């Protein structure tokens, strides 16, 4: 089956076009089922690939390339025709991710049939979702970094379209623009990284680039720059600090769309990209460390912001950012496997959380948690599935989140203890705010009777996917962790020669190699678990913070929470303002607008004047000397065609008062006298 892997991105791609252009715009269209069927096929294909990988019947990595186009290129004085390939590269992480993405997307689509039913642009929504998924699948499966980048950008487009799906309102419009621009900002880093890679390697094919790095041919500093560039891109897409600002705003889109963005597609792309180019980071410890710290800071900041938000989707959004920080931190700390593992499990439970939240919103028509409460009575199925999801994300033992998060913590502990403690703190905050959300929504009394009265359990098309995802959230972690499967599927890549070794001592390349391998081996040895005491402490602390959340938010009154808020006003404000990062970027936008206005002013008033209207300034000065300045304006006004040389004309004209023949004679006489005086020089 794996030779048909190229179909996995293509099918939803075509499906999206069928949905976009086929049929009429109809709020009750049947078109969505095309997308669902397509996604089903994709899921089947992905699962077959995955199963082959699990059972070992398929040899991974699998790569197949086709010729796309050729460009003439010259690298370091060597001229050649570069045949740009387009193809699939399925390795272990890809196999896992494909399943997760197709599955979540399928669930989201099924769910959306009910959720989006009756929207004026019903059909278009599904086309966008399919396209989005196709782009993500393409990114996952591509063997070519340029194609990866193309899919990456297309995903940016899709997020733009989905976030701004309800573009009649002001909010989504601003949010979609913000999302696109923020990610674009990050993308420029990635863009440069690509340029740099090609300038050095002369290829975009991942396997060839890997070869290059593997042989240690890439200088460490360049590798660092490339790594930072990739990180910038990843920061944009995966909403890492400081570019996370777009993600909370992205909640303006339809909730299932958010689920897709947060769980399966957009945000995972950054993590995935880093994993695809992990060899770059292996070659550059600086880049690696940057990734770790970026992830850590993101995780912490986002978690802190989630503590104070009352918008159910925003809390989830912050939690996504935070979890992505976890993954990035893991990757940076050398936990390749754990990071991707967490990405997979996170896909399931975050999708579940969003879809559950969507179900709630669908039911009560508000995002504000202060207007919810006690919904467990009205929506039991949603309540139960959400409970599983919340437990999973909090890292309660037995559920999927526990395994992946545990593995991350272990990797980080092995990497750096300080990081570990901060991350643990973040994990506790995670447990707290997730349960805060949970309690506020489902527990206690109904705070808004009107809304509560109308609340109801969602239809089967909504709850069905919830159940499926709940099952996966509960068991995927355990299943993948079983018997070290995840280590087998997602092995950490290595490079055989560190750059310094090859560059510093090319003559002794053969000797350097075993040394480097030894170094590799030593890092791999850390692949252990947390010390038992620490492990237990962590679990206890998590349970403790859940309890704390229960105490504070079980209702019906929230005196404790209010008291804390009252006492820690400035901190709340800081968190509520999202650490002022948004304000910083708004200032940036304002400044760039000012710069643009200035540029245009210069263009219209300086460049245009100097280089076009006459020989500009010079002539103007000339005209002034000729004391004909008023004429200049009068004439241009009259002619309406003030232009080239007008000024000089005025100048010359003012020399001669026309009509007086004796003045004419005077000039002739001056010429005569010049001629006569010329003779004096002889």
């Amino acid at each position, binding site marked *: 089956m794996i030779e048909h892997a190229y179909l996995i991105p293509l099918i939803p791609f075509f499906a999206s076009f069928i949905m976009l252009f086929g049929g009429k715009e109809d709020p009750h269209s049947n078109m969505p089922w095309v997308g669902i069927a397509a996604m089903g096929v994709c899921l089947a294909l992905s699962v077959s690939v995955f199963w082959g990988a699990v059972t070992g019947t398929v040899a991974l990595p699998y790569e197949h390339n086709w010729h796309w186009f*050729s460009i003439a290129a010259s690298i370091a004085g060597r001229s050649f025709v570069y045949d740009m390939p387009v193809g699939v590269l399925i390795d272990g992480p890809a196999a896992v991710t494909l399943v997760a993405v197709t599955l979540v997307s399928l669930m989201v689509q099924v769910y959306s049939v009910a959720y989006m039913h009756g929207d004026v642009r019903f059909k278009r929504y599904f086309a966008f979702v399919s396209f989005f998924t196709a782009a993500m699948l393409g990114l996952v499966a591509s063997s070519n970094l340029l194609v990866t980048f193309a899919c990456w950008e297309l995903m940016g487009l899709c997020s733009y379209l989905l976030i701004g799906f309800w573009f009649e309102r002001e909010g989504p419009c601003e949010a979609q623009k913000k999302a696109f621009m923020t990610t674009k900002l990050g993308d420029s880093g990635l863009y440069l990284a690509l340029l740099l890679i090609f300038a050095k390697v002369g290829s975009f094919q991942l396997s060839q680039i890997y070869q290059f790095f593997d042989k240690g041919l890439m200088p460490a500093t360049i590798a660092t720059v490339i790594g930072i560039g990739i990180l910038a891109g990843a920061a944009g897409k995966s909403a890492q600090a400081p570019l996370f600002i777009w993600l909370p705003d992205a909640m303006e889109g339809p909730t299932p769309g958010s689920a897709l963005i947060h769980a399966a597609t957009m945000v995972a792309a950054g993590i995935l990209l880093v994993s695809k180019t992990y060899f770059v980071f292996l070659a550059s410890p600086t880049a690696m460390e940057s990734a770790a710290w970026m992830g850590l800071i993101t995780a912490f900041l986002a978690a802190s912001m989630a503590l104070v938000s009352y918008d159910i989707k925003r809390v989830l959004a912050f939690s996504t950012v935070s979890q992505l920080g976890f993954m990035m931190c893991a990757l940076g700390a050398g936990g390749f496997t754990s990071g991707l593992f967490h990405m997979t499990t996170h896909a399931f439970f975050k999708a579940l959380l969003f879809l559950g939240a969507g179900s709630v919103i669908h039911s009560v028509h508000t995002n504000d948690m202060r207007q919810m409460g006690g919904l467990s009575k009205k929506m039991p199925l949603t309540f139960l599935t959400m409970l599983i999801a919340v437990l999973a994300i909090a890292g309660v033992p037995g559920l999927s989140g526990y395994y992946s998060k545990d593995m991350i913590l272990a990797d980080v502990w092995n990497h750096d203890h300080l990081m570990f403690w901060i991350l643990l703190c973040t994990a506790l905050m995670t447990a707290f705010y997730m349960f805060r959300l949970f309690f506020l929504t489902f527990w206690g009394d109904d705070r808004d009777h009107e809304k509560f009265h109308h609340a109801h359990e969602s239809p089967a098309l909504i709850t069905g996917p919830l159940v499926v995802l709940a099952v996966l959230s509960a068991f995927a972690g355990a299943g993948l962790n079983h018997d070290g499967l995840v280590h087998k599927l997602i092995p950490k890549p290595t490079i055989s020669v560190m750059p310094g070794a090859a560059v510093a001592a090319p003559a002794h390349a053969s000797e350097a190699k075993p040394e480097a391998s030894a170094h590799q081996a030593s890092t791999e040895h850390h692949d252990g678990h947390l010390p038992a005491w620490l492990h237990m402490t962590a679990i206890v602390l998590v349970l403790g913070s859940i309890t704390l959340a229960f105490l504070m938010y079980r209702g019906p009154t929230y005196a404790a929470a209010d008291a804390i808020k009252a006492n820690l006003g400035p901190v709340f404000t800081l968190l509520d303002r999202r650490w002022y990062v948004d304000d910083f970027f708004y200032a940036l936008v304002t400044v760039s607008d000012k710069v643009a206005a200035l540029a245009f002013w210069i263009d219209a008033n300086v460049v245009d004047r100097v280089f076009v209207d006459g020989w500009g300034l010079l002539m103007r000065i000339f005209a002034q000397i000729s004391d004909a300045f008023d004429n200049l304006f009068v004439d241009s006004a009259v002619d309406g065609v003030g232009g080239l040389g007008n000024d000089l004309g005025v100048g010359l004209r003012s020399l001669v008062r026309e009509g007086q023949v004796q003045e004419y004679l005077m000039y002739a006489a001056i010429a005569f006298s010049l001629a006569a005086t010329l003779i004096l020089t002889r």
Partner: protein
Amino acid sequence: MLSLIVWSPLVGALIVLMTPKEKVRAIQTVSFVAAGVALAASLTLLLNFDRGSAAMQFVERWMWIPSLNVQYLLGIDGLSYPLVLLTAFMSVIALVGSLGIKERVKEYFFWFLLLEVGMLGVFAALDLVLFYVFWELTLVPMYFLIGVWGGPKKEFAAIKFFLYTLSGSVFMLLSILALYFKSAPHTFDMLELMKPGVQSLFDPRFQILAFLGLYFGMAIKIPAFPFHTWLPLAHVEAPTPISVILAAVLLKMGVYGLLRIAYGITPLGFAWFLPALIVIAVINIVYGALCAMAQTDMKKMVAYSSVNHMGYCLLGIAGMSATGFSGAAFQMVNHGIITGALFLLVGVIYDRAHTRDVSAFGGLALKLPVYSGLMAMTCFASLGLPGLAGFISEFMCFLGAFSAWPWPTAISVVGIIATAAFFLRMMQKVFLGAFNEKWAGMEDMTARELISVMPLAVVTVWFGIAPKWPLDLMNKTIEHMLGK
């Protein structure tokens, strides 16, 4: 065959001139036939065009002015052929757009066809005098087309365009003459002038001077900073089809000339100028995008985006690498198609609303889904979204420049962000948000408008997904150009 391509619009123009002005339908038909013949003929060349050869093909050589050794010398290679195709294609597209012209139809089509002769000739000519003649031949029709059928400040725009471009090209003429007298035997033949034997007669100092003259002419046409200010005005004031032609073809003449003549004949001067060129390219990119950001007039914004996009071409050229050159060549074609479509689309809305101020609209996507979709697609293509035509060429330009000029290229990336910013802002203001009830009566695109835009949209997607075909046309020639 090349003569047929170049001259068939002239025949059309003469027939139009002799047709009584009341017979609008006949005039339009003649114009379409003439432009169609040019397009068909240039397409049939595809059958015989040898992609594996870097030599000039379909060469036609006659003595024109024997005393000065001026020849009627036409020929195309991988650099000029795509541009000939583009010109013939965009002319037909613009003619479709021109069907909306209602007054002084006869004169309009006469000038239009004359313009096409000039444009096609520029790309096909291999003799410098012939090149110059065609080059100037585009000016006069353009002057009239802008000046008669343009917007409120059309007359000023027309004369400014004319004077400005003319003042550039006369310096080009001086350089051409200098090259003629410096070569031995005296010749205007570009191919001769590129030969090593003749090249060895041009000492570096001479090449620098000659290059500067040539560059001045080309830079104004491109338009490269700081000679770009005629462009926004001309674009804004020109009628829609003429803006299309202006953006799609006329700007390309500058870049083409830079590659073919300035680089080909005065390579040392070119090399000497490179550091300045890269700075100009960066300024074009960043500054053009910034200026576009400050616009509220959609057409002016697109015009400044042209400045920005031609900056990419310059960037690619400044890299002096095969990738950059092909990128620039490909970018010319893509920019022609995309910006052409953008102008057509802006024209569509201007025809309906008689304003192009972005803040006058809002929520049009609700009312005009087809139009909005096309516009969005074109905007995204223009800001370099992968999968659409602009991306590959833009990327190649960056790629080509990067190894030679890492820092300037890195700065140029800012331009990409700014481009995205102004296009998104424009789309938001015009198409998104609450619907502005003022435009409740607005219709979506008519069949004629769709016919003119759809081919461009199709090509945009085609070149975006499968750039192999156009790139293969160019590759051999460009390799050869750098191989010298």
